């Protein structure tokens, strides 16, 4: 027979595909392969070519889905092992990423500080790196679904390789961090705040922390909804928990605008502060036609509470030191930001639906 069909190879490949879902033990795979070969031999005796016999035999064996489902019932340890692999991989990979981020920052800070005199250029570079990292985290969050699917697939096929890769990431990141030792004993994450006395470096660093927070939160809030995080999906019909967490994140970001110049200009500080809330409120109002006021209440309540409680204390000490009070500006900024966002979101939302009505009429 002048055929290039190799029955042993074909059987091995087919069984490997079934086993790749991860519910078969090596012994199970060997048994299925032995069955397929017996089946092919018998069918070939009845007059089929080996290739035809192989097709019939695999059809009779059952689909991958069928077999995996049945084997999973009798090999529960395989399932448990897989959960552990996911768990350990997640831990190692996230630690590795965290260390990698720290290694990059260590390198950048180290380079900027080494020259002795910190130049304007190196300061802008540090701020730009902060923004780039923010963008990278944003991309990861946005493509979360594709990344998760990719990792899932890889973890099913090559769990050990993936664990080794994640561990390698950890080792490389940690050795980079050690290689570019900084003169200071402070942890790298505080250097942006204490070594460069620059509002933009500080603010972009806060922005980075904010994005990290968003990234972490996104992992929890999308457990049940593993789709890509579009603005619409994030903001339409939000849960109260989401609004509280988003409100807290907004408060952190809004509060960090205080480092931006000009300093001691309460009105402008209040404006920046309100602008952050405006953006959030706008998004919530834009994507929700009903229940908006309730959503905005839960979104702003934590920030308002923090501003009033912490703000009044801070104001008292400001008064003692002879500075002017700030809290009213922030509270008013917050409320005006929420109201402005509400009106803006409503306005555009209304116009959009109006056009929709015209189109359908």
């Amino acid at each position, binding site marked *: 027979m002048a055929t290039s069909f190799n029955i042993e190879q074909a059987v091995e490949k087919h069984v490997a595909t*079934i086993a790749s879902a991860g519910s078969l033990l090596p*012994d*199970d795979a*060997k*048994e*299925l392969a*032995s*069955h397929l*070969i*017996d*089946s092919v031999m*018998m069918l070939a005796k009845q007059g089929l070519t080996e290739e035809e016999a192989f097709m019939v035999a695999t059809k*009779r*064996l*059952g*689909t991958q889905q*069928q*077999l995996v489902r*049945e*084997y999973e*019932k*009798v*090999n529960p340890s395989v399932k448990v092992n897989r959960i552990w692999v996911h768990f350990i991989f997640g831990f190692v990979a996230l630690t590795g990423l965290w260390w990698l981020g720290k290694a990059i920052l260590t390198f950048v800070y180290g380079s900027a500080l080494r020259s002795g005199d910190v130049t304007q250029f190196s300061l802008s570079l540090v701020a730009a790196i902060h923004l780039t990292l923010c963008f990278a985290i944003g991309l990861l969050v946005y493509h979360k679904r594709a990344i998760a699917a990719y990792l899932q697939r890889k973890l099913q096929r090559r769990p050990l390789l993936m664990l080794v890769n994640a561990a390698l990431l950890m080792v490389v990141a940690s050795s980079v961090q050690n290689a570019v030792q900084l003169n200071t004993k402070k942890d790298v994450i505080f250097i942006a705040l204490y070594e460069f006395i620059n509002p933009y470096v500080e603010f972009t660093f806060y922005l980075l922390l904010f994005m990290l927070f968003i990234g972490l939160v996104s992992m929890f809030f999308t457990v049940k909804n593993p789709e890509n995080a579009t603005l619409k999906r994030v903001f339409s019909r939000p849960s109260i928990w989401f609004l509280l967490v988003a409100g807290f994140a907004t408060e952190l970001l809004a509060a960090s605008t205080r480092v931006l110049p000009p300093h001691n200009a309460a009105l402008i500080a209040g404006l920046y502060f309100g602008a952050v809330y405006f953006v959030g409120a706008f998004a919530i109002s834009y994507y929700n036609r009903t229940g908006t006021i309730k959503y905005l209440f839960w979104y702003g309540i934590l920030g308002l509470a923090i501003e009033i409680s912490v703000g009044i204390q801070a104001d008292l000490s400001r008064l003692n030191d002879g500075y002017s009070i700030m809290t009213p500006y922030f509270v008013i900024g917050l409320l005006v930001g929420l109201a402005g966002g509400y009106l803006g979101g409503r306005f555009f939302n209304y116009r959009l639906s109006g056009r929709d009505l015209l189109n359908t009429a």
Partner: protein
Amino acid sequence: MYVCGVMKEVGKDLIASSLAPMVLMILKRQESYGYELIQHLKEKSGGHLDVAEGTLYPVLKKMEAKKWIEAEWKKADNGRERKYYKITGKGMKELDSQIGQWTFVYDLMQQLWQPHLTLNKQ
């Protein structure tokens, strides 16, 4: 027993619960391997046993875990290895018990069928 019409296919649930005693019955006579077991079942059923062949193996694993059967890899005449199964003492007892249960259900069904027959005759 009265059989109405031609039996087309045995339902999945029924197969799932009857596969174990049928395998035990075959293994009571002689030790065997998966492919042979399936061929045997298919032959006897006249092709009415429509089951994905591969799903027999998880059933065998379950029976092995319950110690009703024992498995051993052996070299066949053609030099290739096959996993042979044989029934254990525990499996013999289990078979007796399951046959008892099946007979009970069968008898019960036959008795329940009678009124239907008499109604038809009237």
